[in-house]
């Protein structure tokens, strides 16, 4: 079984989203099962496709400042701010390990 508790824990860390309950974990298992059908297709020699517009060049503009000065507008939507700063809780503190976290996975 490739979906071990370690993998689930890892995913919760990466996604910063929780599985919440058995249903959440089952959802992932079903999603993987569904995706496995891809392996039926022979893709030897086929290049991956990033974009349907791959034959065109992307538009690039001149590196000139054409807009800005909208600090007030942008700050309006933030819940916690001080002067012109967005306020964040302390960083550099990793998410608690599985055993210490409030997560459904603890029981697994």
């Amino acid at each position, binding site marked *: 079984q490739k979906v071990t508790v370690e993998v689930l824990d890892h995913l*919760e860390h990466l*996604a910063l989203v929780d599985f*919440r309950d058995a249903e959440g974990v089952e959802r992932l298992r079903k*999603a993987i099962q569904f*995706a496995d*059908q891809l392996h039926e*297709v022979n893709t030897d020699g086929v290049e991956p496709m990033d974009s349907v517009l791959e034959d065109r060049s*992307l538009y690039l503009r001149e590196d000139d400042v054409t807009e800005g000065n909208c600090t007030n507008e942008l700050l309006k*939507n933030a819940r*916690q701010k001080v002067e012109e700063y967005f306020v964040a809780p302390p960083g550099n503190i990793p998410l608690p390990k599985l055993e210490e976290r409030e997560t459904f996975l603890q029981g697994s």
Partner: protein
Amino acid sequence: AALKEGLRFQVSAVLKEGRVTPTELCQRCLALIKSTKFLNAYITVAEETALKQAEESEKRYRRGQPLGVLDGIPVAVKDNFNTAGIETTCASNMLKGYISPYNATVVQKLLDQGAVLLGKTNLDEFAMGSGSTDGVFGPVRNPWSYSRQYKEKSLPKSHPADEESNWVITGGSSGGSAAAVSSFTCFAALGSDTGGSTRNPAAHCGVVGLKPTYGLISRHGLIPLVNSMDVPGILTRCVDDAAVVLGSLAGHDPKDSTTIQDDFKPFELPDLTDVSKLSIGIPKEYHAPGLSSEILAFWSKATDLFKNAGAKVIEVSLPHTRYSIVCYHVLCTAEVASNMARFDGLEYGHRSDMNKSTESMYAATRREGFNDVVRGRILSGNYFLLKQNYENYFIKAQKVRRLIANDFVKVFRSGVDILLTPTTLSDAVPYTEFIKEDNRTRSAQDDILTQAANMAGLPAINVPTGLSERGLPVGLQFIGQSFQEKQLLTVAKWFEKQVKFPMIQLEVKRNDHGAFQHQKSASFL
């Protein structure tokens, strides 16, 4: 009077002649929105700003200087497009209360043409879903649930209580927009289309739903789901109207580098009379498992229609069709995992009170802000993007995507002009039935016929075709070649003329100035 159901062109003429003013039109639509509140099509109704816009429009008409055909025309916009000063929620707790500081390019373009923005329409949370049932503001009800046609066929001896539990879904995820257009509260609405989200509800609600070629219309300001597949979608009551709206929206946007730089010239649709030079392809794989016999019959009749009119109709094959949904599933969840990472509570949107660390605040914010569907896709996406899975899932899906896109290239190169397929597997199901299956299962089932066009970036359109045994709309889909919207819409218009889809006979309790009547014909004069 009968304004509401009029074709937009005719409404424009009426506005120009001064027989109705933009303000009156706006007020009528706002009143209708109120009396159809039970449909839950709108999340936000921007009454004040709409009336102001209508007033400005009226001044222009009085001066004899309307900005164009869209001046004074009430429109609605799906709530995943940014609208300055108006709440944009994506039907999610994550963005409740979020007032955008800017207009999406397509919204700005509509406003620049004088359109009157009535409000933001309901959807599945973050456009993830095929029912418009999974948003935080509740499900959207299909206006046809309240039509005489549905009541006569499906609820002949029912009590009002039964009616309440028998309402059908709009399809999704742009269900609110489709319902708004279908119930006459606006003349056109914007949706988005990533896997069929504009065409699916268009089919269920009996309206025209256009998915333009990827790269034709700017995505700037459309809150992204899958950057490589998303497009703004157009919902209207007739193909001509879709062409007009397309004309005002298409074209290069310096703010969206994925829009092509070719010059776009708005066009009027010719009245096609001779289809003998047309080659219509019928992809056999679209005879998908689960396709209802009714829809099959409509599809058959449509091919006969083209044949009898002299067009060349040939069966073609798009061999990788059945992998499109799986491919979409992987690419979509992967891109979603990336796109949803921006919601961390710091700069906008919901923020949890959890304060111990940035990571735990982010986690709590996202735990509180996203529903199960969104969280599920983020987690799946992250799984497919893990180092050990990247090659086998994400890259693999990208390779399969090329195969799917190539299928279409081959078919069009062989001389086929347009493909004709069903849009959905069946007519709209009752809500109580729809929710028996989970979102992912439903999406996988319902997107089967629409998804491949997004994979390949091709333009596609749903044209309402007829009514099912239950009295509900059935639509058919035309898929065209890249950037050949004119050809696509011309054929769609011809088809629309042939099938003469019936007008909805909406039975709504009127609370007001007696404005609503049933109209039997499409013309409102």
